[in-house]
């Protein structure tokens, strides 16, 4: 059999065969950590086996490439990785539920809605929640907040941060009762310090900044969320060349997507609601046109349902469309207090 030809020790070969690996093909899409686990050998030895196997493959079958492609992953690996990364909570469990647990890293989530619906509130809440320590189920990360409209109010951020600290302390008390020690000794100003705040006043500044973020995050690897509030504002002015606008927006979306994947962080961009002239009447939709709506992985629309704030998951690669209610309180985003709330699946 093929593995018999590998230049490895007999005992290793024996382990390989008894575990069921007899051909090079069976080894070709395996990661060394999985192989090590399977054979109960140290990872370094597994790596050696795979290296030898790929070398051999290269020699034997020059036209067929069974070589492990640099950087490629199997779907299993990706699922494993995905599950090991906690999502960023929105502080409303109903909202988290329709989002599959919260805002996901490695993805771009677009959140849009009318003025006053709570976009900036959501942005500040996420910038605070990304900092929840790992011991308490969070990411223990920092946030980049790109403010294009001047809506970020320090007093509100401090208010939300303070409420978050109280919640964390309460949770810590609960953990202490179960003998798990975890200290929450943080001040609201500390939370504010962990939000890297950028103020943008023109569309050229916006593009320059998004280009610069790659370098910035390289130097600040603990950033786990990038929030752009809002991505729309500076692009709704007159662009004589509409094709230019589409190109700029597309370039921006691509850069944000790459940031998310490369640094394993969440990107949340806020969009404004506008009217679209469709079939002789005006309808509500999100700004920036049709081509933009393809750029984001997930899309959430915030809207009013009577007197209640609702979030509707409009687009997601893995979750079904659903709607949940939430409220904006003095503490930030929370579950809606209504008795009739329920998650509506569509």
């Amino acid at each position: 059999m093929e593995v018999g030809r590998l230049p490895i020790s007999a005992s290793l070969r024996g382990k390989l065969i008894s575990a069921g690996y007899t051909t090079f093909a069976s080894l070709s899409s395996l990661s060394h950590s999985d192989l090590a686990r399977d054979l109960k050998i140290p990872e370094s030895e597994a790596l050696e086996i795979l290296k030898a196997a790929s070398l051999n493959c290269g020699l034997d079958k020059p036209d067929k490439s069974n070589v492990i492609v640099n950087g490629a992953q199997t779907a299993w690996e990706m699922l494993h990785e995905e599950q090991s990364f906690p999502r960023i909570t929105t502080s409303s469990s109903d909202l988290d539920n329709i989002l599959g647990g919260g805002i996901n890293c490695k993805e771009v989530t677009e959140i849009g809605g009318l003025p006053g619906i709570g976009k900036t509130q959501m942005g500040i809440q996420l910038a605070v929640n990304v900092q929840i320590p790992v011991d308490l189920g969070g990411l223990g990360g920092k946030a980049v907040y790109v403010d294009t409209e001047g809506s970020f109010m320090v007093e509100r951020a401090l208010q939300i941060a303070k409420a978050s600290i109280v919640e964390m302390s309460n949770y810590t008390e609960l953990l202490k009762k179960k003998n798990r020690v975890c200290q929450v000794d943080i001040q609201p100003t500390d939370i504010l310090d962990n939000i890297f705040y950028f103020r943008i006043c023109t569309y050229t500044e916006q593009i320059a900044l998004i280009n610069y973020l790659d370098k910035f995050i390289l130097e600040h690897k603990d950033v786990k969320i990038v929030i752009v509030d809002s991505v729309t504002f500076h692009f709704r002015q007159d662009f004589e060349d509409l094709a230019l606008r589409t190109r700029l927006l597309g370039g921006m979306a691509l850069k944000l997507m790459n940031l998310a994947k490369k640094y394993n962080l969440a990107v949340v961009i806020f969009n404004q609601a506008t009217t679209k002239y469709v079939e002789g009447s005006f309808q509500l939709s999100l700004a920036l046109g049709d081509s933009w709506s393809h750029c984001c992985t997930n899309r959430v629309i915030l809207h009013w349902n009577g007197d209640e704030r609702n979030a509707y998951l409009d687009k997601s690669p893995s979750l079904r469309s659903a709607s949940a209610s939430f409220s904006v309180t003095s503490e930030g985003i929370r579950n809606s207090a209504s008795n009739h709330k329920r998650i509506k699946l569509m």
Partner: protein
Amino acid sequence: MTPENLLTRPPIADKLTLGCPVLDRCLGGGVPCCSITELVAESSCGKTQFCLQLALSAQLPPSHGGLSASSLYLHTEFPFPFRRLHQLSQAFRSSRPHLVAINPCEDVYVDSVHDAYQMLDIMPKIESFIESAKTRLPVRLIVIDSIAALFRTEFNNTPLDLKRRSSLFFKISGKLKSLANRFRVAVVVTNQVVDFMGESDGVNGVKVGNFGSLHSSGRRVCPALGLAWANCVNSRVFLSRNEVVVAEGNSNELEDGLCRQTKRRLDILFAPHLPQASCEFVITQQGVFGVVSANR
């Protein structure tokens, strides 16, 4: 400009008092700097009174809720109410003689603007005016009274014209916000209302902010300039007046035996730092003052 310079500390927005603690409480301390606050109301509700009062309060020192600043007042409609400003400034000065200059009117710079394109044209002049700092006190309040009048004429109700109009909104708002951020200025803009036409009014019926429908003088109204402009301001405050039945049977009664009074109200429609709040107010010779109502 390098991208690195865009990283700043978020500004702690100084607040400009409205001149009355009851009103200030509603607004979380006053009108914030570095953002655009819009006052929406139908005519004669008190928008201009608020603006004149703010232009005077700006001159107070920060210890008294002011900004130790002068104001730039851009008016777009009727002649500027010089006499009323003078009357208010006298009352203002007499209650705080040690805190303001002999003639507070001198620290209010007034100019008129006629249309949106002219507004855009004068932005660089405004910027250099503030930057040059040739005024006795730095300019830290800009009032535009009213923004709706700038778009009165020359825009028809066709999709193309509306689109042209809305891109002007974003241009003007973008420049104002840039000024607000750069010079830590509070920008106050007044806007009018239009009647709500009913079901056929489409998007105008959409709930923007804390109230599903707004009422003034017994009619349902909506802020002018539509949804696009609503996206251009940071905070929106609604002033209204309504006739309210106060008591029954009285010597000044009307035919139906009820006594009516005009009540004025201020409502927070949306603001990134404020919960929904409202407050009753009155307009007197001395100015605008909030009223703590005994019953709601």
